[in-house]
C-alpha cells in the first residue's frame, strides 16, 4: 500500500492543506471561458427588463405615459409604482432600517433613480421601449451638499415628516432636522473634551473622504423565474449574501421561504457592490410573476456607477491631543455622512456608521469620542463597504491622517510618533476607548520589520537631499514617503453585536464525507474571486486528513447550502472558515471512534496524525481517513449511526483584527501634478496563513483598488446633481500601465479565539493602502508647509496643492 512508503512529509504534502500555495481549482473553467456568470444564464422564453431612469436629481413626477412604449413590437409590459403599489412593493426596506422606492412614487431623489421597468422579449425591444416612455417632471431644488441639507427648508423625504411638520424618530433614534437621518455616538464625550481642552498639544483637521464606487468588472444583475405550476421562485443573481436575499425576498413578497431558491452563480467581483438589495431584483421578480416567464435584468455600466452602491462620502473633523513628547492622550471625531436619497447603507443594524469606532486605530489612546450624523441629499443611496469591513477604510484613513497631522504639529517623525503610541504586544487583548476588544497584535515587530526593509532612514535622507535640490532649482520633482499602519476589524460577527435586518451574522459549513474518502462541503458564503473552493478545501484537508483535491466546495445555492450571511467585510475566513474547521472537527471526533473500533482499542488510545488515526505508541497500527470513511458507511459499528457528516453554525466570540505596515515611495512632478509610484512595500499580518499565493494576490488587488481611490477614483456630482463620472473614461480604474509592482511581506500573529488562528486578508490592503498612497502625496509637500489636502489626488488636485504652496512661482 502506497501509504506505507510515504514519509510523513509526503503525506502532509499530499493533503495540500493549510499553509501551501495550492493552485486554484476555479481556474480551469475561468481560463477557458467556461465560468457561469448571471448574464450567461439563458432560459426558455426569457424576457429582459430594464429601467426608465430619472434624468433629474430632484423632481416631482406629474405623469407617466407608457402607451407609445407598449406599442413597440416585443414590449410586453411597463411597470410603474402604481402597478407595484397594490402588491405593497412600490417601496422596499433597506438594510439600514430605512425604506427605498422600488419605482419612483411621485418623485425622484437622485439622478438615475428607477422610474419605470420595461419588460420585453429581448434587450433591443426593451431599450427601444425605454426611449418611448414619456415622463413629465417638475424640477425641485437640488441639494448635493450634506451641510446645506441640514440647513435647508427643502424637504427631501416628505414620507419621513409628520403632517404637522414634526420629525419622527428614525431607525437609529431621534432626528434633528427633516434631512437628518441619525446621530450615532461612541465613547465618552465630556472626558474627551476635557482631555483635549487641557492638553499640551492639540492637532485639528477636517477632511473629506470622497464618494466612490466598488465598480466590479461585472455589474449587478439577476434572472427571476417564477414557476407558477409548482409555486416556486428561483432567483439567480450577483448576490454577495444569497441567504439574506432569500429571506428579504420572502419577507417583502410574501412567498414562503421554502418556495424561494436563490442562486449566486460565479460572480465577477463584488467589493461590496453586490451586498445590497436593488430595485432591479424586486422588479424582475414581479415581472416574472406577472408574465409567468423568466425575466433577466442586467445593469449597464452607467446604471452601475450612478445607482447601485456608492462607498465613502464622509466629511470628518478630528482633534487629537498629546503630550509634548508625543504620547497621545485623546481623540475626538465628528462625521457628517452623506447617505444620499435613501439610507441604504449596508451595516449591521446596531452600527449605522459601521465600525467607524475603530478610528482609534493601532494606538493606545486612553480617551476618545466619536459622533456621526447621517444626512439625506439628492445623491444615489448606498454606503457600502468597498473592499473593507463596515466603514473601516474611513476610520483608518482618519486616524492615519490625524497621526500625520499631529506629527507635523509636534515637528516629529511620523514613524516615531506611531512607534511610541502603538498598543504594546503585552496589552492584548486590548479594549479600546471606543469599545472594541482587539484580540491580538504585535505592532512594533511589524513596524520595525517594515522600516528596516525599506531602509526608512535612508529614504528620509534621500528626501531631505531632494528638498535641497528642489530649492536649488536642480529638480522639479518632490519625493514623498507614505506611511500607514492599520488595524482592521473584520469577521462580523458575534451575533450578540451584529445582525442585518435581524439576521444574526453567524456562518456555516456542512460536510458530507463520501464512502470512498472524498467529500463535499457547502458553506453560507459565496466567492467573488477570493478562491473559496481552493482555500476552504485546504482548511478541511488539514482538519480531516483527506486531500484538498478530494474535497468539493460548493456555495451560493440556498436550496443546498446551510444558512449563512455571505461574503463581505472579510468575514468568510473568520466566520465560515471557523465553521469549516469546527465541522471538520466534528467529523474527526466521529472518525476517532470509528478508528478506535477498527483498531480494537479505546477511543482515547488513538490519535490523529495528518491523514489517519494511529494507536498511541504504535504508529504502525493505523487507519487512514479513507478507510475510516468507508467503514463509516459500510460497517455496522455498535453505538454509532452510519455515515460521516457534520454541520457547524459558527457564532464567533469576537471580531478578528488583522493589521499591517505599509510604505510607499512616490515622486511627484510639481508642474503637472503627475505622481509616480517608485516603490510600495506591504507587510500584512492576517494571522494563520491558509494559502500564501492567494494572500499575495489579494494584497496586490487590494492595493491597486487603494491606488485608484487615493489617486483619482470618484463619483462626482455637479450642483444640479448630475453624475459627472458615469463611464470608465472618467471613473478611474487603473490599467496595467498605471500600476506598480508591489513588494509583499508578512508576520504571523494568530487570532487567539479563531479555531485555526486566521484573521482574513482580502480587504486589509485596501484599508491600509488608501492612507499610505495619500500620505505619500501629502508627505512630499510637508517640507513646504502642507498639513492636509483631500483625496482624490488626481493631477489637478496635486497641482493645486503645489500651486497653493507657492511652488510654481
Amino acid at each position: 500500500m502506497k501509504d506505507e512508503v510515504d514519509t510523513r512529509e509526503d503525506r502532509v504534502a499530499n493533503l495540500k492543506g493549510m499553509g501551501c500555495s495550492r493552485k486554484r481549482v476555479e481556474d480551469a473553467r475561468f481560463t477557458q471561458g467556461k465560468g457561469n456568470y448571471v448574464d450567461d444564464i439563458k432560459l426558455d422564453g426569457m424576457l429582459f427588463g430594464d429601467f426608465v431612469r430619472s434624468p433629474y436629481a430632484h423632481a416631482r413626477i406629474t405623469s407617466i405615459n407608457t402607451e407609445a412604449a407598449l406599442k413597440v413590437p416585443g414590449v410586453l409590459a411597463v411597470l410603474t409604482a402604481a402597478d407595484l403599489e397594490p402588491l405593497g412593493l412600490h417601496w422596499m426596506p433597506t438594510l439600514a432600517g430605512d425604506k427605498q422606492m422600488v419605482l419612483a412614487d411621485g418623485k425622484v431623489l437622485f439622478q438615475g433613480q428607477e422610474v419605470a421597468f420595461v419588460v420585453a422579449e429581448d434587450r433591443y425591444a426593451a431599450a427601444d421601449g425605454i426611449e418611448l416612455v414619456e415622463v413629465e417632471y417638475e424640477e425641485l431644488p437640488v441639494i448635493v451638499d450634506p451641510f446645506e441639507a441640514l440647513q435647508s427648508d427643502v424637504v427631501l423625504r416628505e414620507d419621513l415628516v409628520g403632517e404637522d411638520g414634526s420629525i419622527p424618530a428614525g431607525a437609529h433614534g431621534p432626528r434633528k432636522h427633516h434631512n437628518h437621518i441619525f446621530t450615532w455616538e461612541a465613547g465618552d464625550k465630556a472626558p474627551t473634551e476635557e482631555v483635549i481642552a487641557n492638553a499640551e498639544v492639540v492637532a485639528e483637521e477636517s477632511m473629506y473622504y470622497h464618494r466612490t464606487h466598488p465598480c466590479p468588472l461585472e455589474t449587478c444583475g439577476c434572472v427571476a423565474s417564477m414557476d407558477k405550476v409548482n409555486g416556486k421562485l428561483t432567483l439567480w443573481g450577483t448576490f454577495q449574501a444569497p441567504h439574506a436575499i432569500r429571506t428579504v425576498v420572502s419577507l417583502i413578497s410574501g412567498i414562503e421561504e421554502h418556495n424561494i431558491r436563490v442562486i449566486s452563480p460565479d460572480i465577477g467581483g463584488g467589493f461590496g457592490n453586490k451586498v445590497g438589495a436593488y430595485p432591479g431584483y424586486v422588479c424582475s421578480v414581479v415581472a416574472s410573476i406577472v408574465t409567468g416567464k423568466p425575466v433577466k435584468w442586467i445593469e449597464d455600466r452607467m446604471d452601475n456607477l450612478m445607482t447601485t452602491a456608492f462607498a465613502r462620502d464622509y466629511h470628518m473633523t478630528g482633534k487629537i491631543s498629546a503630550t509634548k513628547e508625543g504620547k497621545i492622550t485623546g481623540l475626538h471625531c465628528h462625521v457628517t455622512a452623506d447617505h444620499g436619497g435613501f439610507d441604504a447603507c449596508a451595516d449591521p443594524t446596531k452600527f449605522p456608521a459601521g465600525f467607524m469606532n475603530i478610528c482609534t486605530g493601532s494606538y493606545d489612546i486612553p480617551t476618545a469620542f466619536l459622533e456621526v450624523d447621517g444626512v439625506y441629499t439628492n445623491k444615489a443611496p448606498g454606503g457600502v463597504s468597498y473592499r473593507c469591513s463596515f466603514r473601516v477604510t474611513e476610520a483608518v484613513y482618519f486616524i492615519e491622517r490625524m497621526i500625520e497631522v499631529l506629527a507635523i504639529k509636534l515637528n516629529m517623525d511620523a514613524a516615531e510618533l506611531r512607534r511610541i503610541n502603538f498598543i504594546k504586544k503585552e496589552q492584548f487583548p486590548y479594549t479600546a476607548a471606543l469599545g472594541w476588544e482587539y484580540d491580538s497584535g504585535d505592532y512594533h515587530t511589524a513596524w520595525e520589520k517594515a522600516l528596516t526593509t525599506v531602509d526608512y532612514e535612508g529614504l528620509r535622507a534621500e528626501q531631505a537631499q531632494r528638498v535641497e535640490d528642489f530649492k536649488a532649482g536642480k529638480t522639479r520633482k518632490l519625493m514623498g514617503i507614505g506611511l500607514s499602519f492599520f488595524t482592521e476589524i473584520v469577521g462580523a460577527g458575534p451575533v450578540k453585536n451584529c445582525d442585518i435586518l435581524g439576521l444574526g451574522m453567524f456562518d456555516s459549513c456542512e460536510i458530507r464525507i463520501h464512502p470512498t474518502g472524498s467529500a463535499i462541503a457547502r458553506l453560507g458564503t459565496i466567492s467573488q474571486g477570493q478562491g473559496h473552493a481552493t482555500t476552504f478545501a485546504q482548511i478541511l484537508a488539514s482538519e480531516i486528513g483527506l486531500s484538498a483535491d478530494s474535497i468539493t466546495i460548493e456555495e451560493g445555492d440556498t436550496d443546498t447550502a446551510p444558512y449563512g450571511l455571505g461574503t463581505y467585510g472579510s468575514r468568510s475566513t473568520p466566520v465560515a472558515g471557523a465553521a469549516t474547521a469546527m465541522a471538520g472537527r466534528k467529523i474527526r471526533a466521529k472518525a476517532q471512534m470509528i478508528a478506535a473500533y477498527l483498531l480494537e482499542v479505546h477511543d482515547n488510545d488513538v490519535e490523529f496524525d495528518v491523514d489517519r488515526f494511529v494507536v498511541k505508541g504504535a504508529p504502525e497500527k493505523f487507519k487512514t481517513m479513507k478507510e475510516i470513511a468507508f467503514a463509516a458507511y459500510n460497517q455496522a459499528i455498535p453505538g454509532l449511526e452510519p455515515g460521516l457528516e457534520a454541520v457547524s453554525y459558527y457564532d464567533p466570540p469576537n471580531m478578528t483584527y488583522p493589521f499591517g505596515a505599509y510604505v510607499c515611495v512616490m515622486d511627484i512632478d510639481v508642474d503637472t501634478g503627475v505622481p509616480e509610484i517608485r516603490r510600495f512595500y506591504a507587510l500584512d499580518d492576517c494571522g494563520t496563513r491558509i494559502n500564501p499565493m492567494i494572500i499575495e494576490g489579494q494584497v496586490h488587488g487590494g492595493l491597486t483598488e487603494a491606488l485608484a481611490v487615493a489617486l483619482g477614483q470618484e463619483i462626482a456630482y455637479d450642483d444640479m446633481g448630475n453624475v459627472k463620472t458615469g463611464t470608465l473614461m472618467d471613473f478611474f480604474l487603473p490599467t496595467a500601465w498605471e500600476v506598480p509592482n508591489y513588494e509583499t511581506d508578512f508576520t504571523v500573529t494568530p487570532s487567539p479565539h479563531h479555531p485555526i488562528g486566521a484573521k482574513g486578508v482580502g480587504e486589509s490592503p485596501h484599508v491600509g493602502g488608501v492612507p499610505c498612497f495619500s500620505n505619500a502625496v501629502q508627505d512630499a509637500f510637508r517640507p513646504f508647509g502642507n498639513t492636509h489636502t483631500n483625496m482624490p489626488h488626481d493631477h489637478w488636485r496635486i497641482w493645486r496643492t503645489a500651486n497653493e504652496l507657492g511652488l510654481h512661482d
Partner: protein
Amino acid sequence: MSNKMHIKLNVNGKDEEFLAEPRELLIYTLRERLNITGPHIGCETSHCGACTVTIDGKSVKSCTMFVAQASGKAVTTIEGIGGPDALHPLQEAFKEHHGLQCGYCTPGMITRATKLLEEIPNPTEEEIRFGMAGNICRCTGYQNIVKSIQAAATEMNAAKEAAE
C-alpha cells in the same frame, strides 16, 4: 424597425449564418445567439477589454463592433484558443501564476495576450504592461498577469526552439 440582414461569420473555425438586425453588437451575437459566453461585457464603451476577441488577426473589443461590420470575417474567442484537451500555454500560465481571481476579465485578457505574444514573442515587463493596457482587471493588480504572460512567453519560445 426590423431590417434584418443576412450575416455570415466564422467563429472559432465554424461557419455561422443567420439573420440579424445590423445594430446587434458582436458581443451579443457571440454570447446570446451563438452561446459563446467566454467574452464578457464590462464597460460597454470600449475601455475595459472584457469583450476582447480576435478578428482577422487584430484584437477587437466586440462591444464596439456591430455584427453587420463583422459579417464575412473570422472571429476567435477564448473558446477557440484552447480547451480541456489542449490548453494554450497562456491558459496554463494564468492558472500556474495566479493570474486571475474572479475570472471575469480573464477570457478577454488571455485572448489579447495571444496577439501580444504573436507580435512580441519575448516581451519585457514594460511591453506587457503597455500591450495589455486595453484590458482592465479589478482583482489582481496585474502583477501576476504580467508574470503569467512572461511565463507563457518563455514556455512558447522554448517549445518553438525545441521544434526547430
